[in-house]
């Protein structure tokens, strides 16, 4: 579900970048990037099996 929302937010960013105002596009971009980071930290829970 989180990825559906994330992709939807990217579609909104792209649509506003092209048809809407630049300021709103920058605001939506910030929200989408923060959402991506949050999703990353939600899923990055596996321990890295590194040997060093």
């Amino acid at each position, binding site marked *: *579900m989180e*990825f*559906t929302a994330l992709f939807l937010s990217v579609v909104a960013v*792209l649509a506003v*970048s092209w048809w809407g105002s630049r300021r709103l*596009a920058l605001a939506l*971009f910030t929200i989408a990037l923060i959402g991506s980071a949050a999703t*990353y930290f939600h*899923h990055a829970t596996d321990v890295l099996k590194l040997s060093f």
Partner: protein
Amino acid sequence: MTRSLGVTLNALGLYAIALVLAGAFAAQLLLDELPCPLCLLQRCLFALLATGPFLNVRYGPRPGHYALALLTACAGAAVAARQILLHIAPGDPGYGSAVLGYHFYTWAFIGFAAAIVLTAIVLLFEGQFQGDGVARPVGFFMRGAVWLIIVLTALNVISAFVECGSSACPDNPTTYELLRPSS
């Protein structure tokens, strides 16, 4: 570099991003391999990478627009690097199929790294920033790139919804949640 050349290079970048998104989709459908959460996140960041070029094509090149692309490419490279490290241990077969010897997340890392380097190189040419920053009409070539990216991202909305349904995406998806026969 003139504004016109800068805009054309950005449109070419959009076609490159569209190629990546289409390739990932083709692999998903033809190889019947479901993208994992980190794979979906990398796709999402490839789509978000198009924001900078979108704004450059519409309003003319600005350093701030390139900064958006750099931020997104750095985030994408970080996600791809983590997935590479998850499968770096000896004996680990990796996630999904390999194409030309590399898994998709390795190609994604190369793609994001290339985006960082190419964006930095294009930023060196300050002649493109002399424009007035006003939106101008764009041709079919550039509109085609924009529509391609928007349609491919919208298709990913549908694909992610069919794959994950209304719950959190599983770490190792084996079937589309919405196509799973009800028991």
